[in-house]
């Protein structure tokens, strides 16, 4: 059975020599510990990129993804949140205690995504 992917966009300032920062998978304070992702069962990585850059008008150099299992293995949960748009979901960091642990979880998610490689990159970014 294909893995259930959850997609994140990589900001152009958050990639150096092809490696993206673990901040890609860390919620910012304004996120209230809910990290936005796109449900891979609703939107492919390419569709996710298209939506992010042409509908939400935000910048991305490509899409990286983690699986639902990888999220759970870190003691995190995720849930669909279709309110902004159908594919929208969130990885919930509210059970994470403290900044250090949050960084550790984000780092682990980022490493899992790096092992997978970009799940989508536009032609010129490759």
């Amino acid at each position, binding site marked *: 059975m294909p893995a259930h992917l959850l997609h994140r966009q990589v*900001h152009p*300032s*958050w990639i*150096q*020599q092809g*490696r993206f*920062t*673990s*901040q890609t998978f860390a919620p*910012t304070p*304004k996120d209230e510990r809910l990290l936005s992702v796109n449900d891979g069962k609703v939107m492919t990585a390419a569709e996710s990129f298209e939506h992010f850059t042409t509908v939400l008008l*935000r*910048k991305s150099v490509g899409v990286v993804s983690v699986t639902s299992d990888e999220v759970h*293995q*870190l*003691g995190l949960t995720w849930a669909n949140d279709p309110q902004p748009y159908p594919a929208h979901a969130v990885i919930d960091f509210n059970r994470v205690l403290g*900044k*250090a*642990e949050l*960084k*550790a*979880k*984000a*780092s*682990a*998610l980022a*490493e*899992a995504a790096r092992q997978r490689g970009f799940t989508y990159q536009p032609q010129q970014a490759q």
Partner: protein
Amino acid sequence: MDSEGRRSLNVAGRIGFRSPARTGAFQVKTEFIKPRLVGKRFEEHSIPVEVLKDWAVFEDLIVETARWLYKVENHDRQRVPRGFSEGFALHLSAVEEGSAVPAIDRVHMHSQLFPDANAVWFDKARDRVLQAIEAVNKGLPIADLLPSFLLSYFDRFGRSLRESEHIEFAAPSGLGKVIYDIRARRALILQGAPEYRQEERLRGVISEVDARKKKLTIELIGGQRLEGGYLKEVHEEASAALSDYVQNGPLVLIECVSVRNKQESLTAIESISRIERLDPLDVSARIEALMQLNDGWLDGEGHAPSVDGLRWFRDAWLDNWAEDMPLPFLYPTPDGNLQAEWSNDLAAVTAEIDIEEHSMAVVVSQHVGGKVLSELLLSLDEDHGWQTLVEIVGDLISGS
């Protein structure tokens, strides 16, 4: 001055006279000026050889200023007296304690029959040059002190001075000091010309090389593309850097003469004398790239890291990080700081750097389970902070 009429700068610190006296005269040296060179490069009271060549230009400036002063004060004469500048040569005779203090002496013939009548003009020239530097530092006009054709000498005098360096002279008035630094130099040159030159190190990617014309094009980190001539000695490095150029070619550091205008914008590069390939993670280059960020860089959010903070971190990094240690991946954070990351298959070091407070919050974590292995808060104003970071990264790399 030797027997062939050439002026010499004796960098060995000896007095090298080669013309024998003919008229009962003998050569003497008289202290002419004793500047103090201030900056990190001079702290061991030594002077890098690249700086010494500036004093040959200073000698030329003094001679030409003396010639000009003579003609100004002797309206009836169109030329200076024969042999006017033959009796003038500056020699570096010692480097004294106190940062680097080169004692620069005037070497001249002394004779009881033919006293050195021209000596006064060189002393006046020295004082006039220092008065001009003093005036420009105070924001005063200098048109009455030095004509614009003499200001062009400042374009070659002090070209290698760095941002944190300056030359101190005793003021001709006897009161205080006259400071010659990058700002004074720039102000003097721009009073007489639309642009100035300085030796600079620039970072970027070489995208074109013209072997016949000995010119290359470099795309600087900030995005500017410039073409400049290079010395034939670095042709091999230029070609090698170009041959690896695809989309993002290898980062290089070039040493060149940069040309900047009154707005301090870089308009041209000349005389590229060194090309060095940089590590892809070169921290100085990365910092330069991060300096291009503006507020709102993160899709309308995100504070740009302050330029002063970035400069501090770059300098602290260069001072404290051993060359054989792996370089980090360096990223901006939304709150205007930096995050340095190292990782291997098993673990990661994530270090959030507060570039205003000079501190670093380090988290060592393992990928499996996202478990925190250790967390520390380090001060980067203390050696201990850096040493601890080196140990942590060293342990990650060695797998311990």
